[in-house]
């Protein structure tokens, strides 16, 4: 019990540091890829501290409720992963978090916020089925949704679930809000919808949003790392490689449109996932 409490606190405290650091590295590497120096690696933390100290102005009362909800669900989802509980619950908590963000976007009157929220909904529509298929794939492979079972297996998931791994890389791009999928909001989606769903976020609330983003990046990379849990450091390396791959893709692609994203995700992602699961059931049924 004591060990679990320590793990709980450690997760809540350490995860944002890892996430913020990853964002700092992201900005630095992106800058280098574009031929710039880039900000200091600790810049996201400076931004966060500055935002926290700003005046609290909520455009609507509901907005900050939803932002807190987004943060709480995201932390819950991450705890699911750390405590190796049910993967299905993790996916649904992640879904709740996404919906909270959408509602935060809808709770203001700004049209840009609404456009962004609409697109965020489309994004959820695009990546949620893939994650669900991953859950089913894990179930098909291990006979349970429990993440702890993945750790018990000596054979890494990636061997049997590699098509789903490719699909999860799509999810990673969408979740990291990188080109070509940075349609709902991004560091530079200003051309179409200003800042999209987070246009009206400001001061401490925006800081909370960033905090949630840090949890999210750790969570999503953690899901990628699940594909190779024995030994875990290989999985972490795979996750970091995927992270670097996203940075590369971000810099060699233009932003695509929302319909294109949904189309790609539903065709390639779903087909890969369904074929993968069908193959597993097929081989299991035969043996």
């Amino acid at each position: 019990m004591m060990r679990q409490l320590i793990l709980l606190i450690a997760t809540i405290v350490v995860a944002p540091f890892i996430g913020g650091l990853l964002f700092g590295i992201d900005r630095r590497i992106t800058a280098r890829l574009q031929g710039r120096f880039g900000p200091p690696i600790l810049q996201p933390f400076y931004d966060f501290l500055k935002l926290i100290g700003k005046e609290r102005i909520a455009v609507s009362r509901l907005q900050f409720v939803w932002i807190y909800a987004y943060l709480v669900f995201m932390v819950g989802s991450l705890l699911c992963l750390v405590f190796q509980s049910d993967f299905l619950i993790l996916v649904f908590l992640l879904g709740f978090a996404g919906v909270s963000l959408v509602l935060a976007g809808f709770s203001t009157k700004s049209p840009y916020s609404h456009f962004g929220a609409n697109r965020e909904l489309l994004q959820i529509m695009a990546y949620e089925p893939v994650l669900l298929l991953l859950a089913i794939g894990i179930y098909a492979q291990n006979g349970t949704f429990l993440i702890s079972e993945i750790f018990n297996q000596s054979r890494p998931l990636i061997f049997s679930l590699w098509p789903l791994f490719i699909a999860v890389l799509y999810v990673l791009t969408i979740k990291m809000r990188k080109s070509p999928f940075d349609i709902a909001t991004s560091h530079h989606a200003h051309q179409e919808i200003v800042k999209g769903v987070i246009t009206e976020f400001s001061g401490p609330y925006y800081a909370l949003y960033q905090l949630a983003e840090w949890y999210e990046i750790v969570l999503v990379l953690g899901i990628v790392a699940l594909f190779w849990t024995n030994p875990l450091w290989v999985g972490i390396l795979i996750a970091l490689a995927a992270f670097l791959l996203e940075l590369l893709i971000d810099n060699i692609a233009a932003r695509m449109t929302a319909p294109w994203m949904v189309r790609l995700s539903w065709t390639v992602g779903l087909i890969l996932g369904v074929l993968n699961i069908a193959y597993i059931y097929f081989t299991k049924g035969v043996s």
Partner: protein
Amino acid sequence: MATRTTVPFGPQHPVLPEPVQLRITYEDEKVVEVVPVIGYGQRGIEKACELNEYNKNIYLCERVCGICSYQHSESVVLATEQLWPLDIPPRTKFLRTIWAEMARTHSHLLWLGLFADAFGYESMFLQFWRIREKVLDILEQTAGHRVIQSVNVVGGVRRDIDEAQKKTVIDTLNVVRRESDDLVNVLINDYTVKSRTVGVGVMTKAQAMALGCVGPTLRGSGVSEDARLTKYSAYGELNYEPIVETAGDCYARMKVRARELFQAIDLQMEALSKLPEGEIAIKVKGGPPANETVARTEAPRGELYYYAKGNGTRHLERMKIRTPTFANLPAVLILLPGCQLADVPVNIHSLDPCISCTER
């Protein structure tokens, strides 16, 4: 299902750092109606031109536009000279052509970057602007300033390009050509770029003519028209033919500008090799006679019309400036309706709008 939202696109909007307002009505994410509203940046430059001495107009009109400032100063000088008319030395004409093409190079590089930014290709945007710095550097070395060159005076130019500078310019242009070659290749062939621009914002030849479009916007729709065909400055002695694309969509407009970039570099090389010896300026006394004239130059964005009327004094009777965006702005009315929200910035940027010079 379809809810209508009217979004004021500007006058303060991160997309366009220009004071234009487009009142766009969306149905979900589809544009159904658009009304352009300008007038946020009216500075009364035409009026000020009448109050100024004609010499001072050059520095005023250069500030009509921040990017095609060279062509503005060239036009105002040409218009004033045509009132007499003055006989300009050939070396001056060539120097003016070289600087004009240099300005076009940097403007097109800027536009290509901004256009890449319009569909979210940030790394491409930064690469184009990086190359542009080199062009600005040679402008500073030869003309004295990066953007506002202030090198034209009535009767000639103020600076000369000597042999050492000529060599620097040629070397830099070779580097610029090599580096932009790589990037333009990406821009033209990249799958994501193509899927965002091909078939977006199609304007037919007839529509472009009827709306009075100019410059790359017109040439992207298949009309071979260019003010450089009037052979002002040294263009009559250079090997020049306008670049035309026929598709009429954003991709075609982008290709026109990308090809014009290389054409501008070629024209500079050619002009530098043919640069004649001689005077660079003649003395001008008194004011322009009572006469009227039109000076037409090809700015990077399109044809620039200067109408000037003298009255024998050092002050002009009337100066009328028609900037390229003023002619291109009505095209928004047919480009935007029916397109998606995501294509709005791409469409608007494909016209290369410069609103502050539209309003003067």
